[in-house]
């Protein structure tokens, strides 16, 4: 358990309380303007009271602010600016209040000075507020979505990696992880725990506890200790509400510290990664050939409702891998009439590019329906077995499906011409031809002729 800290406890009310002086003082300013231009009448007597409330709340906010500053979580310079601007604004507000009271001692200067003081006060207030906002939200918070802004330059930004051999362990792998998960609280302007991941220098300097990264010893590195704590632990990083590091990310950082000696310029390959780590990092950099899924191509997003509505029409739909939008679709067996099937296949076109495996076994499919499958361009595995009315006339239309690897058409009327036609699909490996019009001799002949294919028959 962390000790309680009464100073910080109250200090954290500062961001809440600061809005009171902002409101009161600006309100006073607005009345001064509207009275001057006769938009309002008779409100002027409220001004001193509003300035008084503004001044008092500004004093309170300043005190709380000074308490909050003891946390040491903020950039020293930026904090200084905000602090002095705040104190100055408070004093100016007090002066404005005194002037507004029509006291005899200020009689000589009031006429000339009052308006200037109010304008300066509003200016100071805006500046202080802005500096404070920068402290809390980061300097680029306000301008982040600004149109036509100049591209920001990240000192650690690196060109895109296309091969794992080019990847620098720190710059291309470790820093992007930290940037995504830790940087929002640990940067130049918001240095929680006096830790910043802005530059290599600040990485090396570490935070309040020091030893953020101990080269060669992940177990002693505060960075890893904190992200590996139980999520319920008070010291767990990132804190509640932020996205924690994944197991893979933790492993990568651990490997960088232990085997990569926490080097800031060495290549990833210099750490002599084992295959597991190679896979992890390649996966992280989204380089193909190393991810577990292997040959996954990317598929377009399909809204959940589309899937749900197809399921309601009787299709059984499974996503082949989580978030891949690649589907295995099965139309449960059971004969339906031709127009119902035509309708269902038409509906299925909503996800035609996303279906890898499709089974329409024993569904009453006819030659007329096969053409409807032509646009299912990513199909790899198709099962149209036990549709006994399918003949060569329909089956050879499947030649359009260039990505097909396996077609099961047992118990259909496929014949020699079907095999001849489908052999043109270069990726095709297996055709299941049991109980078709092909006899054993024809199968043997076709097998001999098209060696890239395996024709599977049965007993």
């Amino acid at each position: 358990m962390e000790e309680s800290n009464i100073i910080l406890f109250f200090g954290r009310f500062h961001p809440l309380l600061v809005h009171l002086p902002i409101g009161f003082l600006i309100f006073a300013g607005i009345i001064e303007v509207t009275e001057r231009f006769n938009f309002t009448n008779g409100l002027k007597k409220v001004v001193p009271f509003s300035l008084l409330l503004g001044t008092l709340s500004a004093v309170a906010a300043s005190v709380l602010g000074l308490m909050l500053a003891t946390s040491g979580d903020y950039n020293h310079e930026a904090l200084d600016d905000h602090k002095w601007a705040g104190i100055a604004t408070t004093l100016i507000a007090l002066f404005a209040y005194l002037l507004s009271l029509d006291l005899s001692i200020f009689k000589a200067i009031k006429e000339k000075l009052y308006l200037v003081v109010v304008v300066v006060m509003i200016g100071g207030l805006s500046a202080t507020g802005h500096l404070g906002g920068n402290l809390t939200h980061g300097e680029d918070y306000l301008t982040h979505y600004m149109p036509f802004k100049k591209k920001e330059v990240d000192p650690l930004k690196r060109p895109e990696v296309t091969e794992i051999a080019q990847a620098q362990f720190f710059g291309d792998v470790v820093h992007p992880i930290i940037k995504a998960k830790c940087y929002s609280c640990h940067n130049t302007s918001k240095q929680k725990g006096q830790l910043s991941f802005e530059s290599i220098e600040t990485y090396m300097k570490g935070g309040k506890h020091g030893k953020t990264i101990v080269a060669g010893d992940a177990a002693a590195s505060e960075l890893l200790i904190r992200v590996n704590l139980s999520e319920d632990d008070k010291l767990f990083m990132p804190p509640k509400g932020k996205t924690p590091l994944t197991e893979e990310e933790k492993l990568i950082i651990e490997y960088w510290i232990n085997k990569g000696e926490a080097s800031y310029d060495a290549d990833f390959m210099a750490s002599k990664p084992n295959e597991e780590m190679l896979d992890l990092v390649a996966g992280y950099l989204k380089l193909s050939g190393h991810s577990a899924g292997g040959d996954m191509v990317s598929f377009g997003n399909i809204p959940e409702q589309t899937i749900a509505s197809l399921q309601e029409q009787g299709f059984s739909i499974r996503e082949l891998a989580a978030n891949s939008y690649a589907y295995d679709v099965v139309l449960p067996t059971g004969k339906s009439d031709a127009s119902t099937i035509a309708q269902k296949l038409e509906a299925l076109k909503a996800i035609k590019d996303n279906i890898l495996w499709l089974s329409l076994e024993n569904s009453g499919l006819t030659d007329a329906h096969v053409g409807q499958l032509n646009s299912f361009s990513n199909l790899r595995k198709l099962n149209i077995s036990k549709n006994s009315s399918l003949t060569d006339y329909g089956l050879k239309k499947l030649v359009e499906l260039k990505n097909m690897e396996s077609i099961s058409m047992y118990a259909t009327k496929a014949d020699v011409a079907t095999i001849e036609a489908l052999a043109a699909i270069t990726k095709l490996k297996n055709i299941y031809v049991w109980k078709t019009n092909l006899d054993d001799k024809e199968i043997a002949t076709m097998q001999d002729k098209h060696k890239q294919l395996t024709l599977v028959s049965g007993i």
Partner: protein
Amino acid sequence: MSGHHHHDHDILRSNVHDFKKIEESIDRRQFLTKTSLGLGAVALGSLMGADKLLAGTAAKRGPIKPLANANANPISGANGIPGLPHFLPKAKRVVYLFQSGGPSQFETYDYKPKLSDMFGQDLPPSVRKGQRLTSMSASQSSLPLAPSKYKFDQYGESRAWVSELMPHTAKMVDDICFIKSMHTEQINHDPAITFFQTGHQLAGRPSIGAWTSYGLGSDNQNLPTFITLVSKNGNGQPLYSRLWGNGFLPTEHQGVQFRSGKDPVLFLNNPENYDGHDRAQMLAYLKQMNDIQNDTYGDPEIKARIAQYEMAFRMQTSVPEVTDMSDESEATFEMYGKESRDPGTYAANCLMARRLLEKGVKFVQLYQRGWDHHIGLPGNIERQCKMTDQATAALLQDLKQRGMLEDTLVIWGGEFGRTAYSQGRLTKEDYGRDHHPRAFTMWMAGAGVKPGMTYGETDDFSYNVVKDPVHVHDFHATLLHLMGVDHEKLTYKHQGRRYRLTDVHGHVVKDILS
């Protein structure tokens, strides 16, 4: 625990945080509030008409949906847990032909010709390396080497060695990947089977099928995801339902055992004088009441109960359909062997397995007992092979000709192997073999596994693995990998820590993946 100023009954209060929450939700005030409102609603309901006794709650929860809608399940729920599969799977279904008792590798697949020259010689200590033996052979004065009584030959394009006891499987070797280098940690049946089926030697962990059901969900909402078939024509070591149990996973993931008889699932028919016309409505209502209970207590068993009631209802139609073999051809029964007509035999169960897989059952776990041949091995193993070889090969062939072997993983194997030396007296004609965990053979075929391959090697005594050892954990990791699951990522938090099928072990055997 309770302060002095507290009332006496506080002493009954739990100190456990979770319990406190529950107690809070059913404490006196809550109880009175809930029951008085509840009774009020019931009273009001009765006033409005006795047939609408629970009208108040029903109205709040909307109209009763017919049960059929429970089928139209969106992507979540019955389709496993989010984030799975981790990658593109090769296997959509698994059938695991478990040969319980520990089939001898010497008389089946691991050809050891050198043993013939060493007939009756003592097992060299350099081979045994002080390994523990079971109490059944540890007291023997000698450990005489026993060569296989049966001849071996090479088959197929892959030239795989198979004994004469497996003539049918021998014809399928080009579809099979033999793993000769299996090894386990357990030397007795119970812990060894438990280890193979759950990844841990002590009972209590979820079985492989339960893990896949939990992780990947169902492909057919009308049948259980995980079904167990125990052959009736095998005897020997007993099997127990915890081998296909759910362990600490939600109950609906346990294997549903089909009985080995004419009626695989009992009580599917409606009782006399009831035609079942309003059962769906009755179950929907029951679900509503269970949901109310679940909202209050959050006990996962309530959810499991709801799921199982509904599954049982759907099984009333789906099970008779799938178990009615009348649509199978003569040729099929012939292929599986004449015993396939006798429900509950190994052969009939192999055929049943194919039918279940065809219907989208994800994991069929089949058990054949009777491989524990301590004495009289030759005669016994001959009978055992006769009982299983043809149907095993037929299942492979049947899946293959239907195009299903491409995405169905078939596994054959027992819980351990047997010793090179004879337990008890050794003659040319008769011998026995004791349990042996350090080396044995199993095979896989189908989805994503290299066909026509032999992986791993044992020494001349099939006593130690000399090349490419595969541990039980590695087998589990590989199985899950083929189903698109990273075995390190499929976890379940129980009693304060996360568990996996492979616990903290296991490596995918990449060399056997196609």
